[in-house]
């Protein structure tokens, strides 16, 4: 059928400024939309904080009397945990099923009619959401950590900008993973299975349950370079606590950038294949 014109020819090239403006507008809308869920934000904050305590004490126990484990000292572990608890909400590792829901209900048809590519528009909305989360979900757990525990503050001037870049890339990597998991709905309708697997992989291999350097060396390297998961939490947090010298950190961020580009390309490819077979019911 000749019905696949939906996202084929968005007018690109000549009008870069308007498309930037569109991207910005969608991002702002994403920010404002999430700023309205105040009760949910508060509830999520409390939960992140409680789990911050749980994880911090467990890691601290692993450091034992030596106060050192797998290259982290106590203060670095504190930063790892408390910033990590905030980052969870910024990259939104859990519970994004919006795209899958829209595919199942057929509302995706409306997205396909818009002149912006769906991957681009969902990414813009997600950046806006992340902006809100960075203000209201990242700061409070970090404050709790700073006020109650001795945390590690970066010492090198280059670390902070590098960490910000690393978080941005983590967000794009996470978005790419979530988009792909959601896009399985084009074929499966019900995404509960893929979603469960993604949550497990993201949590454990992302470095939430324990820093991946607790694992035997070969396994850690395999995960770090062979899968996108450590790019979600482990790498930004490692960059922030300066676990490695600057050149190694730049290498880690480059790995993230590689995954971000690969995943976005993959999203566009999957989207194109999906549109070719998509049948929207109703009229």
């Amino acid at each position, binding site marked *: 059928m000749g019905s696949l014109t939906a996202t084929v020819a968005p007018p690109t090239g000549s009008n870069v400024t308007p498309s930037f403006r569109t991207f910005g507008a969608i991002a702002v809308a994403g920010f404002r939309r999430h700023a309205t869920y105040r*009760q949910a934000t508060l509830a999520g904050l409390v939960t992140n904080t409680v789990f911050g305590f749980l994880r911090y004490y467990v890691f601290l126990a692993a450091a034992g009397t030596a106060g050192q*484990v797998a290259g982290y000292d106590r203060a670095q572990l504190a930063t790892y945990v408390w910033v990590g608890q905030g980052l969870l909400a910024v990259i939104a590792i859990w519970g994004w099923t919006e795209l899958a829901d829209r595919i199942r209900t057929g509302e995706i048809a409306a997205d396909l009619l818009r002149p912006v590519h769906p991957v681009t528009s969902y990414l813009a909305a997600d950046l806006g959401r992340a902006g809100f989360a960075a203000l209201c979900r990242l700061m409070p757990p970090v404050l709790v950590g700073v006020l109650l525990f001795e945390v590690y503050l970066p010492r090198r001037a280059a670390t902070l900008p590098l960490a910000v870049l690393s978080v941005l890339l983590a967000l794009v990597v996470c978005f790419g993973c979530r988009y792909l998991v959601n896009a399985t709905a084009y074929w499966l309708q019900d995404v509960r299975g893929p979603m469960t697997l993604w949550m*497990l992989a993201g949590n454990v291999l992302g470095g939430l349950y324990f820093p991946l350097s607790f694992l035997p060396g070969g396994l850690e390297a395999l995960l770090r370079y062979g899968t996108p998961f450590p790019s979600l939490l482990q790498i930004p947090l490692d960059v922030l606590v300066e676990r490695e010298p600057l050149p190694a950190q730049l290498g880690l961020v480059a790995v993230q950038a590689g995954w971000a580009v690969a995943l976005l390309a993959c999203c566009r490819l999957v989207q194109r294949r999906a549109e070719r077979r998509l049948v929207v019911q109703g009229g």
Partner: protein
Amino acid sequence: MAEPATLTGAPAPAQRPRPGAQRGAGGALRAYRALLGAQARSQTAYRTSFVVDLVGNVGATAFDVVTVVVLYGVTRELGGFTLRETLVIVGLSAFAFAAADLLVGNIERLSGYVRTGLFDAVLVRPLAALPQLLLMDLPVRKVSRVAFGLAVLLAALASARIEWTPARVALAVVAPLAGIVFFGAVFVLTATVSFYWIDSGQLANSVTYGGRDFTSYPVTIYGGWFRALFAYGLGFAFVSYHPALALLGRADPLGLPGWVGWAAPGVAGVAAAVAALAWRVGIRHYRSTGS
């Protein structure tokens, strides 16, 4: 969906005007069984999705255990406890939580039912609200998680070199059951918050899933007021830590007497009573969201 079918079909026998206490109870039982059967059928309808879910659910509990093993890969002891000892604690916690989550856990959807008004439909039926809510959505896929938790518990008990006495055998049976009751009470108690605060969903997680994480480790690893709050304020120390000490024959490094480990059923009973009371008060307070 299975919902409307059971609504019109099953509860009919219980609706008859006072058919005598015995027949009333039998009718209610039949109605509950019909609810459960409809759930099991609807959830297994999509075979592939169900199998993936079964596997994924084992994964969640398995990774909790894997985490403990990984931590012991970088340290010899956590809070003064060896891996074998900690695994007894993990086993008690994992099995009790998984079983409670299977039986009572979906009560956490209550806030959704309150928001959409489905809870009104539950209340007008001639059956008690709580059992209906539990059976309406019994997550059959979580059976795999319970089986895995039980396997971890049995393996941990077998490998911990416990000096078995009749009393310890009894405790090894009673403590997990008390843990199930305790976690069940926590699920119900936190769900009642949604009668007052509809968007509280994630808040409950901090005590339910937080409680599971807390009880997976010896309480000695936690510090200060946080330990006091979770272990004794909320009572989570009696789920796995104190029973494990009694089973292992270890004195409590924090100085509580040995008999505390045997108090687990009592604490679970108190928790269940508090949860039942809170549920009743909550239902009385309930005002439909309208529509």
